[in-house]
């Protein structure tokens, strides 16, 4: 709960809210501007070329130039398109991307005009659920954009996108639930506050959820979130070698710019969520002379590291094939995430109740092995079944 709203609302508080909203908005847009430049520059370094270097020092204004250029480009409306939905889709993609960033804690608490407030736009009691809801709504933007274009490639891209996004949403939600389990709250500020204090190994390791829940949910979250925002190696939605531009093939001008913007805003948000849930958010040793603002610096450092990893992944890994993608999501990530969640919960309750830890772990491992074996058996049977069906169909056609 943000202490700003502790004593009713007056004009100053409304002004502070408006100021904070504008500040968050500008931070996010600036972040996207710099991220696109950083990504292009870093990838070109990795691929042994120069990258953007004309607009501004080191080409840092390239994104701005591209954005301004897009305003002067003709906005095409395909004749086959469903006009209303075609115009609605960019909103559905961009607005949730802005809103999701609002619940990210960017720093500790500071004083503005005599009011204590968090360095985060909003801290609703259901913060984590709000994030999940926004990521679900963003799927509509992609899907409707593909469907309403009235063209072949966008339709295929849109259908793929929605199937991919909902497949990985399960794994992502289960991984996030692990962080909720530890903190016992859905508020993002609460989850960060829970990770403060003395850590493990006599304070050598920070008390981050990364170490508390084990590495498994973190890895699952990062993979699933990458798939959720359609970044490489999960960018099947806009697989340019087979689907031209995917769901935004028919979009031009500012409408295309908004999709592009939303994609990079989602990248920033997803990294920020990972930091919030598993890497202690803006927690860190206080930097001298900065007071409450040192948290923001820590947040920035972690964010830049995380984004660099995302760019690195993009430069390194080839794209998945669609069946590999679906197999990874349903047959690996979801069962493992679910299993790990129940195991942590059982261990925690066992600790409280004084159950025999070895017994709990033993039962856990036994149940896990049984489930894994069953899953493998089912997958093999299913593959044979599918192959038989397909072969039968082949005979009829021949």
């Amino acid at each position, binding site marked *: 709960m943000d202490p700003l709203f502790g004593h009713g609302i007056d004009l100053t508080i409304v002004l502070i809210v408006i100021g904070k909203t504008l500040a968050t908005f500008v931070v996010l847009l600036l972040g996207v501007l710099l991220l696109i430049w950083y990504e292009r520059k870093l990838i070109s370094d990795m691929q042994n070329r120069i990258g953007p270097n004309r607009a501004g020092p080191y080409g840092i204004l390239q994104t701005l130039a591209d954005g301004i250029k897009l305003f002067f480009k*003709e906005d095409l409306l395909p004749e086959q398109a469903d006009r209303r939905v075609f115009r609605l889709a960019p909103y559905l993609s961009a607005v949730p991307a802005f809103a999701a960033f609002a619940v990210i804690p960017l720093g500790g608490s500071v004083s503005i005009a005599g009011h204590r407030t968090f360095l985060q736009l*909003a801290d609703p009691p259901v913060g984590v659920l709000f994030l999940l809801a926004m990521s679900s709504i963003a799927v509509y933007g992609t899907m409707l954009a593909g469907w309403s274009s009235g063209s072949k490639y966008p339709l295929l891209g849109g259908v793929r996108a929605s199937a991919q996004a909902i497949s990985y949403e399960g794994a992502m939600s289960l991984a996030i639930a692990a962080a909720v389990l530890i903190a016992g709250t859905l508020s993002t500020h609460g989850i960060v506050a829970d990770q403060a204090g003395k850590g493990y190994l006599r304070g050598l390791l920070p008390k981050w959820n990364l170490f508390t829940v084990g590495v498994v949910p973190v890895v699952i979250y990062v993979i699933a979130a990458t798939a959720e925002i359609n970044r490489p190696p999960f960018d099947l939605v806009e697989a340019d070698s087979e689907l031209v531009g995917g769901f935004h093939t028919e979009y031009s001008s500012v409408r295309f710019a908004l999709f592009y913007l939303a994609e990079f805003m989602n990248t920033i948000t997803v990294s920020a969520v990972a930091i919030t849930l598993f890497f202690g958010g803006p927690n860190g040793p206080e930097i001298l002379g900065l007071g409450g603002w040192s948290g923001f610096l820590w947040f920035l450092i972690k964010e830049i590291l995380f984004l660099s990893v995302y760019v690195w992944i993009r430069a390194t890994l080839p794209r998945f094939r669609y069946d590999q993608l*679906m197999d990874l999501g*349903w047959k690996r990530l979801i*069962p493992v995430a679910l299993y790990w969640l129940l195991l942590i919960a059982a261990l925690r309750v066992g600790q409280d109740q004084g159950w025999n830890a070895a017994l709990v772990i033993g039962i856990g491992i036994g149940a896990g092995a049984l489930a894994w074996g069953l899953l493998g058996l089912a997958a093999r049977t*299913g593959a044979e079944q*599918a192959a038989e069906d397909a072969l039968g169909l082949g005979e009829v056609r021949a």
Partner: protein
Amino acid sequence: MAQYLPLLAMLILATVFAGGSFLASGLLAPKRPTLAKAAPYECGIVPDREPAERFPVRFYLVAMIFIIFDIEIIFLYPWAVIFRQLKGFGIFEMVLFTVAVFVSLVYLLANGALDWGPAKRLMATPTVDPAGARDPRRTSSSTVRRIGPTGKEAA
């Protein structure tokens, strides 16, 4: 409810930003539509049929299976917040619920509902007799026509 006020402000600001961008583009951008520009993109070819209205049933299946897991997740979140107060009873109930969902996943997998793999993998690959496939008279010197640096065949 005051905690949601900034979220509302952000939603309004984002909508205004998107709307403003469209407005600005409408004022700044040229408008010269032609038939070719308005046609569906098809790499330059005039499309001879409407976009497909039917696509593989597996996409629908995925959407339906997703609902099962979404329900599971909806029940997991409140439990995750208060699972310590629910103690052993909560764990037992959640394990029971998870087993029910897991069994349905196993059933779906065993039916091949989530199998997207290419079926060709299991088809018998045609066997080629290596001896018959290779003619001793066909070598790289007899099948490749050599041209020199001048681009003409050697006389």
